[in-house]
């Protein structure tokens, strides 16, 4: 046979890239515009911004279009894009009380202090496929609601809520006080890899950009499944709203508002029941994720309190820190598609060595339990 230096690599890549272009060009329908993705798939855009760790709707829409709708692929494109950008500074730390809420519910009380806003949610709609009439029906216009100049319903203004449930519960004496000033500077997990024992800010950051399904699944294992680090959680604040982003001006030193982000914020109240816990009180977990992604923020808040309660007794903290990143998990899983014939050959060689050793043992009539057998090369 001739020499084996395979030249197929570049040709194969070229062909694969061409196929992608051809599929797009040969599609019957028009290509999707970025505005369409942003306007009509907001949950998808928010999820990709959250898992990619970069707040920019147009970039997320580009990544979604490029990835053909694959969420983890899109998040990967976002993160790799981040790696090409220089970091120019940090914003002023923002207190979550500065959220202008678009949606706020508080399951723990019928009427919490402050307004509840159902907001935009599919929770109470019927999950049946829309008929064409349903889909095309224009929104109702009510006289007592804000309208635009052309008589369309205007978006509801965001509201600053005066209080949060955790503060109310603290005042009522219902909450264990775990507030700490021990780690004032949040640990940047993109610079210092998070490991068990890392400060809580690293745990929260990890969950904020974790894969949504990974957090949901880990939560499920804990509330009903084999892990059981959660007892009985009730939600406090569940909010979706806008937070300002401000930086210090390099010349004047004054804060300058450079934009805003939307976040989903959740408080999770755990009914303490552990032998070493203060069972006369509740404890709280906290979740905050970019964009509107309630299942992720709820899972995050639950896992925050679960990790705190677990206190290193189980592998939960390590599971959250090390196994919930979508890119890490999927990338490593799919790397199995790479050629592994060098390693496989080595495995086969050892299997043959084991079989030779077993055969030699048998030929000698050795008793397997009689200590270390003679090693056969």
């Amino acid at each position, binding site marked *: 046979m001739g020499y084996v230096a*395979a030249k197929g690599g570049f040709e194969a890549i070229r062909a694969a890239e061409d196929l992608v272009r051809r599929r797009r060009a040969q599609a019957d329908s028009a290509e999707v515009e970025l505005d369409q993705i942003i306007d009509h798939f907001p949950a998808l855009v928010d999820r990709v911004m959250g898992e990619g760790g970069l707040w920019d709707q147009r970039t997320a829409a580009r990544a979604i279009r490029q990835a053909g709708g694959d969420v983890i692929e899109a998040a990967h494109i976002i993160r790799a894009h981040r790696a090409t950008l220089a970091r120019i500074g940090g914003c002023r730390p923002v207190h979550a009380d500065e959220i202008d809420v678009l949606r706020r519910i508080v399951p723990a009380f019928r009427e919490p202090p402050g307004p509840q806003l159902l907001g935009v949610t599919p929770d109470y709609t019927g999950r049946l496929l829309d008929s064409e009439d349903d889909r095309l029906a224009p929104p109702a216009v009510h006289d007592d609601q804000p309208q635009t100049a052309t008589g369309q319903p205007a978006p509801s203004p965001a509201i600053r809520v005066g209080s949060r449930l955790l503060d109310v519960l603290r005042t009522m004496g219902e909450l264990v006080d775990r507030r700490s000033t021990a780690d004032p500077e949040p640990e940047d997990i993109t610079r210092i890899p998070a490991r068990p024992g890392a400060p809580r800010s690293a745990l929260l950051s990890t969950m904020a950009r974790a894969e949504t399904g990974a957090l949901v699944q880990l939560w499920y294992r804990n509330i009903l499944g084999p892990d059981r680090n959660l007892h009985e959680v009730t939600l406090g604040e569940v909010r979706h709203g806008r937070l300002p982003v401000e930086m210090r001006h390099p010349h004047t030193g004054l804060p300058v508002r450079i934009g805003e982000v939307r976040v989903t914020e959740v408080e999770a109240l755990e009914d303490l029941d552990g032998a070493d816990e203060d069972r006369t009180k509740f404890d709280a977990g906290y979740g905050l994720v970019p964009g509107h992604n309630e299942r992720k923020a709820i899972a995050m808040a639950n896992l925050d309190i679960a990790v705190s309660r677990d206190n290193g007794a189980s592998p939960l903290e390590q599971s959250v820190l090390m196994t919930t990143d979508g890119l890490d998990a999927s*990338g490593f899983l799919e790397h199995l598609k790479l050629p592994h014939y060098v390693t496989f050959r080595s495995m086969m060689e050892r299997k043959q060595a084991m079989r030779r050793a077993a055969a030699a043992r048998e030929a000698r009539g050795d008793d397997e339990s009689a200590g270390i057998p003679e090693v056969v090369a």
Partner: protein
Amino acid sequence: MSVVAALRAATMPADRRERAVLDEAAKREVRRAVLTAVAVPGYQVPFGSREMPVARGWGSGGLQITLGIVGPDDVVKVYDQGEDGGVNAANLRRLIRDSEGVETTTDPRAATVIQTRHRVPEDELTEGQTLVLQVPVPEPLRGVERDMTELRRMHAEMDYARMWVSLYEDIVRNGVITRTTGYPCLVDGRYVIATTPIPRWDVPPLHDAKHLSLFGAGREKRIYAIPPHTDVEPLTFDDVPFEVEHAEQPCEACGSVADDGRAASYLVELPRADGTSRWVCSDTDWCTRQQVVNGRLAADAVEPLEEL
């Protein structure tokens, strides 16, 4: 000029290449981690691993090291399973070339930096050459301990007892040590490392080598190193010799044999449907050169690898 364009212009060096994949601050972080790794051979140095255009688990760590250490005069070889022409190696090579503007080669003798997935070149490397290995799992003790806090303690206190027990149990149970690739080795008499999934065949060339070996685990976010002329001892017992993957027949393509009559390089098996096999060198560039040396291929018949 848009705000984004203005910020970019203000923060990127003027000579930055358009397809640059890693910013200069990140490269500096990688180099600092590499320096720490070289200063403490075998120690797994945590670093702020960035996401790369290749997926996690596909060489993002090796890639960051290569991007961090090359300059415009470097010549880079990238290969996978010993093969330069495979898709993954070709993709990485293209990325590196476009990002850094370096020349590429398939000949390890001409390369200054060799990025490899799971092989060490059959050619002996020399001073000034750097081997960058892609590492899927950097933790050698993973099989005997899962808790990361305990793993840190074991390395910190040089407590490798559980690893030794597991090797002993391996022999008792199986008659031989059954570790396949990524054989655990003691580096500089201090840290046990995972030699990545390189075959046992490739472990001896790491010992007291003239070249520098750098190990990049992007997903796990660690870098470790074997400086030149460092002891690398595979963990085994005094009466249990370290065994490599010998092939009884030589490569079908080049026919190279070692002094003991067995194949002179690491061979891989190409099975046929009838259950028989062909055996050929894993290292395709070395094999091609041996074919010329052994008169099986005319020197002018060798076609260079096509670049994208």
